[in-house]
């Protein structure tokens, strides 16, 4: 029988070195076939060497350990290694997923090695549901636009949308009002509207989108039109009839 093989994955070189030493010391026949410092390399090495077990750091820049595990899709045994993962640990315990805490304790590693020795010939357990759930939790799909790039003379200023009180259409451009500052954005209002979080930004007029939290009060004029007063500055924003239902409860 060929010796068992392992791949070690951690973005910090000192830590793969340390794990290699500790593993080899208590599992003499284990052959470490490679070390990777990022997820893409880890997948590549897995495809080349088909290790029996992968020790996988959970929190790596770029592709996380969970993402790597997802893509490995049960092709080998996985032991997660983590410094601190509030949510992951509970889930790992619950789903009986093998994991090590950094710094790795001798006794804990010994127990892991024992378990792996006993189960290595069996097919790897199915981790897909727990990995899927955690991957979603650790990296929520951020669908909305959060930063604007605005030209300021020769510079590009990065402006959080959270800072913008009002977007106002102006020809092909859009004006973004942020407190006392006004910026020009090269994206038409309609395009912006599609990218902004509809829970935080409301279209109130054909040519205006307001940040809901930036609204100080809404008033009704004598002619029955609704007008928004912003918290910062003294800009008044008319609400067109088509959107007045948004403020019914305010």
């Amino acid at each position, binding site marked *: 029988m060929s010796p068992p093989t392992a791949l070690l994955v951690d973005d*910090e*070189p000192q830590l793969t070195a340390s794990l290699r030493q500790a593993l080899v010391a208590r599992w003499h026949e284990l052959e470490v076939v490679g070390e990777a410092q*990022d997820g893409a390399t880890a997948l590549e090495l897995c495809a080349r060497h088909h290790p029996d077990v992968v020790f996988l750091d959970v929190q790596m*820049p770029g592709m996380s350990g969970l993402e790597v595990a997802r893509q490995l899709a049960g092709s080998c045994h996985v032991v997660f290694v983590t410094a601190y993962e509030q949510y992951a640990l509970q889930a790992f315990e619950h789903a009986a997923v093998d994991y090590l805490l950094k710094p790795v304790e001798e006794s804990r590693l010994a127990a892991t090695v024992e378990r792996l020795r006993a189960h290595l010939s069996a097919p790897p357990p199915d981790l897909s549901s727990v990995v899927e759930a955690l991957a979603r939790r650790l990296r929520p799909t951020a669908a909305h*636009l*959060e930063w604007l790039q605005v030209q300021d003379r020769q510079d590009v*200023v*990065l402006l959080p949308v959270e800072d913008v009180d009002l977007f106002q259409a102006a020809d092909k451009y859009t004006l973004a009002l942020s407190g006392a500052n006004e910026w020009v954005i090269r994206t038409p209002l309609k395009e912006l509207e599609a990218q902004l979080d509809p829970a935080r930004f409301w279209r109130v007029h054909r040519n205006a989108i307001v940040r809901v939290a930036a609204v100080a009060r809404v008033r009704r004029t004598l002619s029955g039109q609704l007008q928004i007063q912003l918290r910062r500055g003294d800009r008044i924003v008319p609400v067109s009839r088509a959107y007045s239902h948004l403020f019914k409860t305010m």
Partner: protein
Amino acid sequence: MGRARLREELLRRAEDARHLAEAELKLLQAQIEPHFLFNTLSNILQLIHTDPPGAHRMLMNLTNYLRGSLRRTRAGATTVVEELDLVRAYLDIQAMRMGGRLSYRIACAPDLRYTPLPPLLVQPLVENAIRHGLEPLPAGGEVAVSVSREGDALVLEVIDNGLGIDPHRPPGVGLSNVRDRVEAISQGRGSVVLRANAPTGVCVRISLPLGSGPRQAERPAEAQV
């Protein structure tokens, strides 16, 4: 008319004070990132065997980092040099952890070293530069921190040549916190501006009116930078 304006002004001040208190509370909670702490300890445990002087240096840096962080949550105001010492300890640890992928520079105009500075304004920006800008890059990069004077303003800059800002990632607690506190401390006269760095990365620039904060700290007799 005058009374209404006075009331508005008082309300505004009360609001400012509330924001500052909230921001400081959040700062306390976000103090030391556990992932950073435990990974650093793991590194030290390995270096004890392979590179004892390196282990010693990393442990000293971690000690200074922890001492600096804890002291600042209690002290209201610190100085520029204290903030930069904390930043240096942090960056030195990160440079060792990242195995040569990170380089850094810290520059400060000599006459600004003992200028009072609210704690942890620069540190969270440096952490962001590492975490979001440079750590994800296999080739790594550089962080440059500088403190200078421009007219009547104290200017703090953190520049990295990393990945840049993901337009779909909401600003994190660290940055929001810095912005809230700069706004509250300077009563709207300061600013936090982010720019795209050329050719890559992010430049964050904090501007604070000089002399608006607490009184100038006494210069310690035997202080060192």
